[in-house]
């Protein structure tokens, strides 16, 4: 399916059906009786960046949180529909959400390193806190590897013992990315990872997203259209429908969504007529 490549952003391998790592089918997300996300169907390609854009309150964060079962953490929240990951429905009965989250990690809007832990302990927290015993040298190796992947190693290699909260905002966010990488997930969900950061820190994170696609699949929620245009291969546009539930209006390659959208509403949003 040659058409799925975003030639403008990156000239990379072509995709076929088996390259989809996450398949979302008829997904509905609720908070109590309120439906926040309505009938979403989308397939997310592996080792690519998929961006979810849309105005505030359109349910894009909620949708993202459905992908690793973080949605149900909120009280009264539930999900209907299916999310297929490696041919398994992550919402199948008996599936342990803790297991899912080991495979599908998440980075949040506001950098949230554990303030009681050092930089090093932050990175390996996922591993250390879910095993009974870990070897110190192994953890140090893992931390270095992940910090390098997150392009943070050179900046913090002398501060590994300091508190994670002592770093700058942009560094904290990359620390959170390193922390997510240390669990060795296949997919990393990012919920507006740059909205609390300045432009330079934002640029670093965006670069990082591109490099990470060599090994990982990234799904990023952003309300910054330029960001979606810069980093993503695929773009999903969401909008609040009349019953205030978020709908997927259009989902295509980023190039097409931005240059030749099929839906009038997408075009209006992209060209800045609302939102």
């Amino acid at each position, binding site marked *: 399916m040659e058409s799925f490549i975003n030639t403008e952003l990156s000239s990379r391998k072509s995709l076929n059906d088996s390259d989809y790592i996450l398949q979302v089918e008829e997904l509905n997300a609720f908070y109590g009786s309120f439906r926040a996300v309505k009938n979403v169907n989308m397939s997310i390609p592996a080792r690519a960046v998929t961006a979810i854009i849309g105005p505030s309150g359109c349910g894009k964060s909620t949708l993202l949180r459905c992908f*690793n079962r*973080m949605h149900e*953490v909120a*009280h009264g929240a539930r999900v209907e529909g299916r999310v297929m990951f490696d041919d398994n429905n992550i919402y199948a009965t008996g599936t342990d959400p*803790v*297991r*899912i*989250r*080991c495979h599908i*990690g*998440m980075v*949040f809007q*506001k950098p*949230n*390193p*554990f*303030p*009681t832990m050092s930089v090093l302990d932050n990175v390996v*927290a*996922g591993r250390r*806190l*879910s095993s009974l015993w870990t070897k110190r040298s192994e953890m140090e190796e893992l931390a270095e590897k992940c910090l390098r992947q997150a392009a943070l190693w050179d900046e913090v290699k002398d501060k590994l013992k300091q508190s994670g909260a002592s770093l700058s905002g942009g560094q904290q966010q990359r620390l*959170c990315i390193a*922390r*997510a990488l240390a*669990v060795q997930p296949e997919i990393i969900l990012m919920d507006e990872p740059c909205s609390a950061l300045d432009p330079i820190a934002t640029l670093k994170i965006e670069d990082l997203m591109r490099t990470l696609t060599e090994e990982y699949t990234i799904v990023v929620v952003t309300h910054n259209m330029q960001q979606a245009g810069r980093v993503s291969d695929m773009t999903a546009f969401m909008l609040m429908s009349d019953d205030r539930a978020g709908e997927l209006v259009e989902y295509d390659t980023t190039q097409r969504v931005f240059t030749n959208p099929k839906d009038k509403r997408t075009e209006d949003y992209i060209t800045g007529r609302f939102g």
Partner: protein
Amino acid sequence: MAKHALLPRKMINFFMLGLCALGAGAAILVVCLMLGYIMVQGLSFINLDFIISPSVGPGQQGGGMRDEIIGTLVLVGLGSLIAVPLGMLTGVFLSEFGSPRVASAVRFAADVLAGVPSIVIGVFAYIVIVSPMKSYSAFSAGIALAIIMVPVVARTTEESMRLVPLSLREAALALGITRWRSVIFVAIPGALTGIVAGIMLGVARIAGETAPLLFTALGSNFPFDDLMRPISALPLQIYRYAMSPDGNWQEQAWAGAFLLVMLVLVISLVVRWMSRKRRT
């Protein structure tokens, strides 16, 4: 703009500010007077002998409150030993695991318990423990003090656990960490200074309790040796000595009161210092 309307507003502002200052001043004045009086009186009677020697009979000179100090330490220790784990577990349950309905019922129960007059708790301990065991005891006093302390620890634990941001719990969950592990390794460490502050406030509270001890510890003229026997304690002895006509005993009551107030004061200061450190 109506410039004229500004003057009455300023006057009202000034008047209200004065009222607030008056209220604050009154509160501070009472504390200062009480602390000052106890310090002046207590400091003149307190000495090393007071801390290291046992009590003497009426009419005699010297002596101290060694056994009473030890007794209070034993009772506070015993109370804390029971109340800290129980209160902390209750607080963690309230903030982390209780469904809203159950949690609000438990919270209400804790608040009611915190409001029960301590003498009632003393009578309760008397009926439930002292009476069946046919003996006043340090053990029963420890239980009574623990009952007073549990709601204090439980509620402060809950409050400080709630202050741990949701974002940190979510961060832990998103790393594939189980709920209970995230509570133990992320939420509780984050709330630890608050929890310790709560424990210390609880200790300060029970250290000065007298009423429940009347029904449980009873008081004793002998050094502490058995948890199942009556035990003496600082507040009890202060009460006894202050009521007596003996001059030496009255002086010692002042010294005892001073010691007790200093204990509570120091604990309060440490708690303040800790919570300030936490905020920064």
